[in-house]
């Protein structure tokens, strides 16, 4: 039966966003440390709240495990003197290990015999090692650290107390002048200072002092509270996971409550209400069973139900002030026109070297127009795309977005509708920011998709052109995310324009502007490389193997939907046993074709039937391949290529490619090269590591 150990780090209120991760680190680091220290235990529990991180280790062995270790000495020719007695070197070695020559045995290592002794490493007492736990506490990483007082230490927030208990004994150490002890603090207002004497009683003792140290339990209390409210009312309270996670880490003892606001605020756009409640005040909005917002909210207090009416009243007052502000902005904003806001954009800088938002929007219009042209869209849709691109940013200078920045695009859509814009234009203003994350929703409309792609292309090409390419973990303009977004949209929409062409089109447009800081020379190559990396990233996300990715990205970036189809075909073939003979034939052609640049095949020089047959097969396959590619049936197109395997085998069986006759040899290589070019049209098949799978 081992002993129980408790550590608690007492802190000033930690930022809610750091808590879960810090708790996880505490667990992982402790596990790793105990393993290194050879200290066994049965299990561990971790705890966290805004003011503490804690870990309870059950049944810890009182000693480190004792282990026997092999110690390697000198080689036998050094360990023995000429007479065959142990040399000074050997005696010195055994002494150094606390052994005698009696303990020596020999073993061969890589052809040489060495002497060895078995060394016992005695386990130390656990209690002598536990003070080193200090380093675990110090090593926890947070997103942002600070200093306090005269301390040089950096931590998420100041450390105010430390509990370190080995059963009822204090484990002595000190961090930033705070010494360990057995005193902790309960809830700031409802609890007291308390003495801990038994690690196992930690959770219960804290609970009695109004601190729920188990964050899952706090979450459950909140959810139970919400459920109870739902049972007593006709409310439907959707649970936003992120909000729930944040709220449970803002309180040590949660109590849910219902507040209300004036019905007339429901005239505000729903997003404004939800943002005010969720983002600003951390309330859960309340809906009816039919999904409409109700003039209520659910808040979570850090405390019990005492004087809860005062708390509710206070929260209602704050929300009312926020919503009154929003209402004022909403009304004010509608007094101006889109032209008024467009004009204001001339004073808002997008990026110093890339000009104002107004200038950016002008570029986006021109890119969007070119995309619409390439897609051969009709004039009505094209006109809507142009208009949507033109006014895509007007809402940025409205009062509402100025105050509620997270409503960019959303207010744009609302206001555009109010100002009488076409509904597809209005929707595109909202959609052009999509997707907002790697797996975020894509624009649903065509107009929104075109503007979204154009806007992102402008940012990417512009930033790369003025030397703001992402490096390492630094991507301040989110270029990677935006490039991935473009590829996803282009694929989803099945646009048949090769990505490389779109990129070139934007580069041309930029070059024609002659911007002072725009590097006309390097931009194109850097841009293509950057986007190729993003294509590789997207393929990898879909589980495509690295070599297949290379096979695809070694070619110019083509049509996205085509790329995905080709990749999945190759990926399947690569793992298909029956494909082996076919791939052997194809690879042989590819290898040999490297020996020439010749593409001129002269049928008159053919000597054998198999030569003629292969040439004939090549012509037929080439024709059909193109036909299927045009139909975008890449499965069939690839099947055509596979048909070449049989005549290729025949060809190699009956012909000597590297013939002595120069003319014959050149002609045969030219034939193989023609076939290789055809194969490579599908992908750079040579990049695929076929062999490792057969």
């Amino acid at each position, binding site marked *: 039966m081992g002993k129980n150990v408790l550590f608690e780090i007492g802190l000033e*209120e930690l930022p*809610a966003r750091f808590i879960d991760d810090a708790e996880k680190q505490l667990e992982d680091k402790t596990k790793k440390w105990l393993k290194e220290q050879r200290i066994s235990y049965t299990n561990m529990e971790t705890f966290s709240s805004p003011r503490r991180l804690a870990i309870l280790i059950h049944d810890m062995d009182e000693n480190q495990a004792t282990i026997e270790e092999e110690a390697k000495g000198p080689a036998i020719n050094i360990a023995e003197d000429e007479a065959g007695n142990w040399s000074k070197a050997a005696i010195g070695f055994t002494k150094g290990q606390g052994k005698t020559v009696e303990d020596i045995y020999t073993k061969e290592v890589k052809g040489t015999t060495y002497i060895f002794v078995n060394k016992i490493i005695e386990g130390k007492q656990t209690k002598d090692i536990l003070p080193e736990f200090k380093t675990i506490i110090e090593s926890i990483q947070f997103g942002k650290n600070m*200093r306090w*007082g*005269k301390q040089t230490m950096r931590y998420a927030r*100041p450390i105010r107390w430390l509990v370190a208990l080995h059963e009822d004994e204090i484990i002595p150490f000190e961090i930033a002048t705070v010494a360990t002890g057995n005193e902790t603090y309960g809830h700031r207002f409802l609890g007291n200072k308390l003495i801990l004497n038994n690690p196992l009683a930690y959770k219960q003792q804290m609970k009695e002092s109004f601190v729920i140290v188990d964050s899952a339990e706090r979450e459950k209390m909140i959810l139970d509270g919400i459920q109870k409210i739902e049972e007593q009312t006709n409310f439907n309270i959707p649970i936003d996971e992120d909000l729930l996670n944040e709220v449970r880490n803002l309180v040590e003892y949660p109590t849910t409550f219902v507040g209300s606001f004036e019905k007339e605020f429901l005239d505000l756009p729903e997003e404004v209400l939800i943002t005010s409640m969720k983002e600003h005040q951390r309330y859960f909005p309340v809906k009816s069973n039919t999904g409409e917002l109700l003039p209520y909210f659910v808040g979570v207090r850090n405390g019990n139900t005492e*004087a809860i009416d005062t708390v509710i009243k206070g*929260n209602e*007052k704050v929300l009312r002030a926020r919503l009154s502000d929003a209402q004022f902005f909403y009304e004010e904003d509608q007094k101006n026109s889109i032209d008024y806001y467009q004009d204001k954009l001339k004073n808002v*800088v997008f990026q110093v070297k890339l000009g104002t938002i107004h200038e950016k929007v002008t570029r986006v219009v021109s890119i969007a127009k070119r995309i619409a042209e390439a897609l051969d869209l009709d004039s009505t849709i094209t006109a809507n795309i142009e208009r949507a691109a033109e006014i895509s940013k007007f809402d940025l200078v409205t009062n509402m977005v100025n105050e509620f920045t997270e409503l960019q695009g959303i207010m744009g859509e609302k206001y555009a509708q109010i100002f009488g814009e076409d509904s597809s234009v209005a929707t595109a203003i909202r959609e052009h920011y999509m997707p907002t994350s790697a797996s975020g929703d894509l624009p649903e409309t065509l107009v929104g998709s075109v503007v979204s792609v154009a806007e992102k292309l402008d940012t990417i090409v512009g930033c790369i052109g003025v030397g703001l390419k992402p490096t390492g973990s630094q991507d301040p303009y989110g270029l990677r995310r935006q490039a991935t977004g473009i590829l996803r949209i282009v694929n989803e929409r099945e646009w048949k324009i090769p990505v490389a062409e779109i990129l070139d089109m934007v580069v041309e447009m930029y070059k024609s502007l002659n911007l002072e800081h725009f590097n006309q020379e390097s931009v194109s190559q850097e841009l293509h490389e950057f986007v190729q990396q993003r294509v590789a990233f997207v393929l990898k996300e879909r589980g495509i193997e690295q070599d297949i990715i290379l096979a695809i990205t070694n070619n110019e970036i083509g049509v996205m939907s085509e790329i995905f189809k080709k990749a999945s075909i190759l990926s399947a073939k690569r793992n298909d046993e029956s494909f082996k003979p076919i791939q052997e034939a194809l690879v042989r052609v590819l290898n040999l074709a490297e020996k020439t640049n010749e593409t001129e095949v002269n049928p008159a020089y053919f000597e054998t039937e198999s030569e003629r047959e292969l040439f004939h097969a090549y012509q037929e396959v080439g024709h059909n391949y193109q036909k299927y590619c045009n139909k975008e049936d890449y499965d069939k197109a690839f099947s055509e290529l596979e048909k070449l395997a049989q005549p290729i085998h025949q060809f190699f069986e009956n012909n000597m490619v590297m013939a002595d006759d120069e003319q014959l040899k050149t002609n045969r290589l030219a034939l193989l090269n023609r076939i290789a070019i055809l194969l490579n049209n599908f992908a750079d098949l040579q990049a695929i590591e076929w062999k490792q799978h057969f």
Partner: protein
Amino acid sequence: MNIQNMILTLQKFWSEQNCILMQAYDVEKGAGTMSPMTLLRSLGPEPWRVAYVEPSRRPADGRYGENPNRLYQHHQFQVIIKPSPDNIQELYLESLKALGINPLEHDIRFVEDNWENPTLGAAGLGWEVWLDGMEITQFTYFQQIGGLEANPVTVELTYGIERLASYIQDKENVFDLVWTDGFTIKDIFKQPEYEHSKYTFEESDVDMLFQLFTMYELEAQKTMEKGLIFPAYDYVLKCSHTFNLLDARGVISVTERTGYISRIRNLARNIAKAYVEERERLGFPMLKKEEQ
């Protein structure tokens, strides 16, 4: 509790915590942090404890005295302690009790909020303190001031007086707050709020303000070259306020804006550096006082 009594209570409380009670600094500024009593004194190794009310001017927030929540000029109660004491959160909560706010009857929380003032090259970490969902105090551990590492760390408490009063007095409109018996904010400040808004947004002489900015900037530089740090800093404050007036008038484009901010920041940085050097030359007198 009326505002006057709130201020008296906070002054008494922090005076008992050995803070020097100062009066407001007599140059216009946008926040209590900009007073030299905070900004300069939080630099260097010398201990410092001070509390004062700072009337803060934010020209862009002027609303002609018509908006129930916004003011051209509001009041901050500022507490500055260097190095930050270990029990500063407890002291702060005690001060709320002194104002009659019983924590058991409310929901008081420390919600992460990291503060930054690029104009002054200043940044800090801390919280906004919520009272039943309302932000009543900015609680900051300075990490950097005037581009210099803060060492030891100064803690700054900024109570929003009107915010706190609207809660304590249970008023929806800032103009209904009682300053002292018989006098509301409306009585005292409505006219200046209207006139300052009118001046800021409609009547200010833009050309003159641009000229003033350049003159103040030049004077700050010249004064600092002569080693006169406090007067030089006064001119930085004047630059800052002039800039705020121009900005509120909407005559500074965003491109120019960054330029102006970096001009003020450069001045602030140089002054911060010069201040620490001068204190060092003087042998950090406050440090010696503490040792005695």
